[in-house]
């Protein structure tokens, strides 16, 4: 019985972590679908959002407003990055754009370190990470419950936005064929900017949910970003449900593997999973095969 409870505990712990990986992966996939750009600044944008929200909290601004402020600010940063840096470099190759995002990531890390220093901060959150609930012997903290719920909520909202609204239709159209979408009167630039803003805000939400659990410092997102990126690859780079599946799968697999096999090879497991999945399904678990007509 204790063995089952322990397994369930590892599973629940993995779900909480996986929901954060899923949020990070969603932002990465959202951008990749629309612009084919892998955004290596995604993690640093998430950190910046968390620091902005923390600063607003320090200024005694109520929590919901501080979080909204952080998300809005990072959405503006994301959209501005597209307009001011990435769009002027539109003629560059995909690799070139990727390098631009790496450069932007370095700029953001430096900026955060200059403004907020390298100290580790406690991020105040209305949900407690130490107040716990027991369900059949399995312990889950208020914060973990909130993280899972927020993750599922944001994923659902994003899904509805992309699949059930006109804006979502426009986003999908632009992702499929920019020229054709423009010919049909869709404002592609605005849609790109919106996509960048939305993806940045999703990353920001992951950062704000992660900060109270693992403490906030300028390097907080280093590991979660890598894992989120891995989740996106596992799930399929152009599939939103794939990103979510990949995130939860990695979170749970890591937790169970660490508990029963090895802590030392926990990170290695992520890459083993990527290799295995890509060997069997090169397009990822839920991704579609990419065909290009020549």
């Amino acid at each position, binding site marked *: 019985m204790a063995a089952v409870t322990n397994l369930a505990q590892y599973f629940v*712990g993995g779900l909480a972590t996986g929901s954060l990986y899923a949020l990070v992966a969603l932002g990465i996939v959202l951008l990749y679908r629309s612009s084919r750009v892998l955004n290596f600044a995604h993690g640093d944008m998430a950190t910046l959002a968390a620091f902005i929200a923390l600063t607003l909290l320090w200024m005694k601004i109520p929590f919901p407003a501080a979080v909204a402020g952080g998300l809005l600010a990072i959405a503006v940063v994301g959209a501005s990055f597209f307009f001011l840096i990435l769009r002027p470099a539109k003629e560059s190759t995909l690799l070139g754009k990727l390098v631009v995002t790496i450069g932007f990531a370095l700029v953001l890390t430096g900026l955060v370190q200059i403004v907020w220093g390298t100290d*580790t901060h406690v991020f105040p959150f209305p949900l407690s990470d130490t107040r716990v609930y027991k369900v059949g012997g399995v312990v889950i903290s208020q914060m973990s419950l909130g993280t899972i719920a927020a993750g599922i909520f944001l994923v659902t909202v994003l899904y509805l936005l992309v699949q059930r609204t006109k804006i979502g239709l426009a986003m999908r159209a632009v992702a499929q064929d920019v020229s054709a979408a423009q010919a049909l009167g869709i404002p592609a630039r605005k849609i790109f900017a919106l996509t960048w803003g939305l993806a940045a805000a999703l990353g920001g939400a992951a950062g704000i949910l992660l900060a109270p659990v693992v403490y906030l410092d300028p390097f907080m997102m280093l*590991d979660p970003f890598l894992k989120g990126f891995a989740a996106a690859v596992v799930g399929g780079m152009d599939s939103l449900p794939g990103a979510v599946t990949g995130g939860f799968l990695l979170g749970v697999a890591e937790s169970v593997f660490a508990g029963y096999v090895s*802590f030392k090879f926990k*990170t290695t497991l992520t890459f083993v999973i990527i290799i295995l999945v890509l060997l069997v399904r090169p397009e990822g678990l839920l991704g579609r095969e990419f065909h290009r007509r020549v």
Partner: protein
Amino acid sequence: MRTVSRYVLAVVAVLGLAVTVAGQPAERGITPTEIVLGTSMPMSGQAALWGVGVGGGVDAWLRIINDQGGINGRKFRFLIRDDAYLPPRAIANVRELVERDGVLGVISSIGTANCFAVRDFMVESKTMWIIPACGADIWAGMKERNRYLFVTYPGYVDEGIYLTKYAVENLKAKKVAVFYQNDLYGQQGLLGVKRGVHMFQAKGAKLVGQVSYEPTDAEVAAQALKLKESGADTLILYATPRHGALIVRDILKLGYRPTLVSTFTLLDPVMFALAGEAWNDVYLASYMPVPGMDPKTDAVLAAITRVNPALARSPFNALAGVSFIEPFLEGIRRAGPNLTKERIVEAMETIRNWDGEVIRGVTFTKDSRQGINRLFMVKSERGQYTKLTDWYTYARKF
């Protein structure tokens, strides 16, 4: 005419060379008005809490000395290089400090793996290395090669033995588990605990769990559950402040409450802010007075926080920084105005049972570079530390 020009050119070249040579300091890092020192520390990354505090402490103390006119007319210039707690960057930093910046010595350095990575270069370049903040056991057995090395920082193996001894003898520990960083720092702590458990087997001590984490791990929830599964009554920590705070919080969440024992690297009061209630009733070793325990040390803390108010956030680490430079400054004072590296070494070898403002009871000799070989225990209670024991002394190794 051509020959005359050649002669003139040759004379100018020789004179130029002579002037250049004359302009060079007689000793690397020492000029008539200045002493250049440097360090490589994690000012960013997972261990930034240590680096910012310790590096800031050294810097603030040297500024205070400079404001008082320096020592024997020489002021200090202190260069800090960030290695983000990564050994390859530590190597690059130290090489740059020695070969390009021309420092007289490297003050401290943080991270046992980082120190181990730069150890050979430091020995071969004959650079003074003053109190590296890394497990001192890596110096054992290199007596012939440590002329320019001076250490007061304890070894984690010795500390691990002491923590286990204290836990078994005073806290009724029987089943011990270790949460450690999977690198040289954590592994040495683990080795110490293993030896301690072995020594106290007759009293029923047993190692029932050894759970590691990687410095890059964002969370340690699975480790917490594994530790709970071990059923240990005592948990010994060898972690960064961030991972230390995470693990005590996570085990509390699971309703697992072993007796907590920790290395002195987690002594900084910042742990109370990070871990909150979970940092209550933790037993830790220390090799120097903790803030709030000694008026002389508290006066130093007040002085350095006036220079750099940010140091108030990590007072123990900042004071540790001061303790890492103090014996060296004493050596420079004793060496007198005609300063050379060899004179400083000889002067430092005369330091016997010497008390600084922070560090106490330092002894260096020709044969021993292990300036301190003693620890005492403290306990965390409601946001502050209380001293529990007198000094415990262990054998000198180098």
